[in-house]
């Protein structure tokens, strides 16, 4: 009886310890951090150090602006093809790491003024890291959330769901809320506003999509065959073909000449070898050959 009682007691004790450990597991990390450091980068670093870790991965999720549709995105945002040529992650404040990209603009397909909404903070950061400046002509800066930085000896990696980092020297089609006066763009619609461009103008999204998941991509596919060249030709149609005087052109042909479109002039035919005059109708007999 005593043995049974002891066994039962030990079992209960183990059970209690197990439940206690289970219930406190998720909150253990907060025990060693001062309350005013919770949620700060320093707090995450302290937490990692307390576990003997020197690198941590955190996953960020952000509500972006809804692009609504491709047409709305084109109507509201600056659309450009650009290539990132430099990037650098920074600790932006106590809570955030961000990565600044310097893009070289390949072409601007549509330019729109900076869009601000009432009661909202500006989408454009107030300050720019000095080492990303100066900008050459045709260069812009874009801030992407997340990145990696060393904080108190701990490497903190912050990734953003659906929003991988840009690859240097890869061309992208971007829908930006652009402050043209400061050459700073905001990726306001998030990953739905960035597409990779291949050497043939083919577009592909930067994140894995389920069918119907992204109306901007659906529009690019349905209306422009997922091709930058088709989008460009629609947004910036080429100039009309050269127009020449059709009467003059017809006259050129009637004389047997060749009409040169690029310049709208007639290359006169070779002269009649008999008369050294332009060909006439009917053709004259040259007489016997010598």
């Amino acid at each position: 009886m005593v043995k049974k009682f002891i066994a039962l007691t030990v079992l209960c004790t183990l059970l209690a310890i197990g439940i206690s450990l289970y219930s406190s597991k998720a909150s253990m990390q907060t025990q060693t951090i001062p309350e005013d450091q919770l949620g700060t980068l320093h707090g995450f670093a302290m937490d990692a150090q307390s576990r003997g870790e020197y690198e941590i991965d955190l996953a960020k999720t952000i509500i972006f602006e809804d692009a609504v549709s491709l047409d709305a995105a084109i109507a509201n945002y600056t659309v450009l093809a650009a290539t990132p040529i430099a990037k650098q992650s920074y600790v932006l404040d106590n809570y955030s790491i961000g990565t600044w990209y310097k893009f070289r603009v390949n072409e601007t397909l549509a330019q729109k003024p900076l869009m601000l909404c009432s009661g909202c903070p500006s989408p454009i950061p107030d300050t720019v890291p000095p080492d990303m400046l100066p900008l050459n002509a045709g260069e812009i800066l874009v801030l992407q959330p997340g990145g990696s930085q060393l904080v108190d000896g701990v490497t903190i990696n912050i990734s953003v769901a659906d929003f991988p980092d840009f690859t240097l020297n890869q061309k992208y089609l971007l829908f930006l809320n652009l402050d043209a006066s400061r050459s700073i763009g905001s990726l306001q619609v998030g990953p739905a506003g960035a597409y990779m461009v291949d050497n043939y103008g083919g577009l592909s999204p930067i994140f894995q999509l389920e069918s119907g998941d992204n109306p901007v991509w659906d529009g690019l596919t349905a209306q422009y065959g997922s091709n930058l060249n088709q989008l460009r030709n629609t947004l910036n149609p080429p100039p009309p073909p050269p127009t020449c005087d059709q009467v003059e052109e017809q006259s050129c042909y009637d004389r047997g000449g060749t009409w040169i479109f690029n310049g709208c002039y007639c290359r006169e035919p070779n002269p009649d070898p008999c008369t050294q005059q332009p060909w006439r109708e009917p053709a004259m007999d040259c007489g016997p050959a010598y």
Partner: protein
Amino acid sequence: MRILLCFMLGVYSVGILSYALSEAYTADAGCATCFKGEKAFAGGAGTTGPDNRVVNLRYATTQNGGGFLGADATKISQVISGAANDWNTHRDNNQNTTPFNFQPNQNISQMNVNIVLVPKISDHPNACMQLLAAPDKNTGEITSATLYVTTAALANRTVDELKLLMDHELGHFIGLRDNYNNAQCSSIMSQAHDGCVPYAKGIQTGDVAKVRDYVSNPEGCWDKRGAKPHNIVSGGGYTDPNPIPDYYPRTCYYFYDAVDIYVSCDCRGGQRYVGTVYYLTDVFCNY
């Protein structure tokens, strides 16, 4: 004849009913997606089992570090209670709730989601809220998260608007991905408009169903939470030493093929020119 008509009417009714049900099912399941390959939060203090995983929500109260004080504390308490109640009571089409049980709980040693007030979200300045989740390095389990709320959002948005935003962010904590197609889908995971007003009309049956899928079979979800880590760059980052100058406006050259159209005629050569059709064949721009 009457029997035949009744039979046809019955078949027709069954068809209509099946179609309506399939449409309802599609609407329920079609929009929300979940994060793949991670282990769902097992539950914090108060958890009684896998179907009752308590998520303790605590807002910061410190004077000098992200605390909600005075009226701000009152407002965020209402938001937290409302959002917790939303998730705890919404059901899927089978009348199931999620296995998570959100609870406001100011006990700092038990918190699972820490809610912090920040002056701004510097890496996306017009955002109102952000969730930063911490997966366990070894198991991949989401163990805790920090939810940032901006002072501007707290001041300018109503409790109902903030509640929808918090519903969205807590949806991320329990496995849901963002939804980028608000026009065709209704999900709490829809994106925002005018800065940070959510389009969502609230938690949908499909959202609850997808949370349950995430818990029971995360491999069946769509994509991983962290797209991929950024590469560490240091020393000022890479800068092209010889950047190609870029000038505006660019000059583009358009190349056309011109095809002349002739018709037969009683004239020299037997054909008469009537016009030219131009085809754009290539474009070259001096980038």
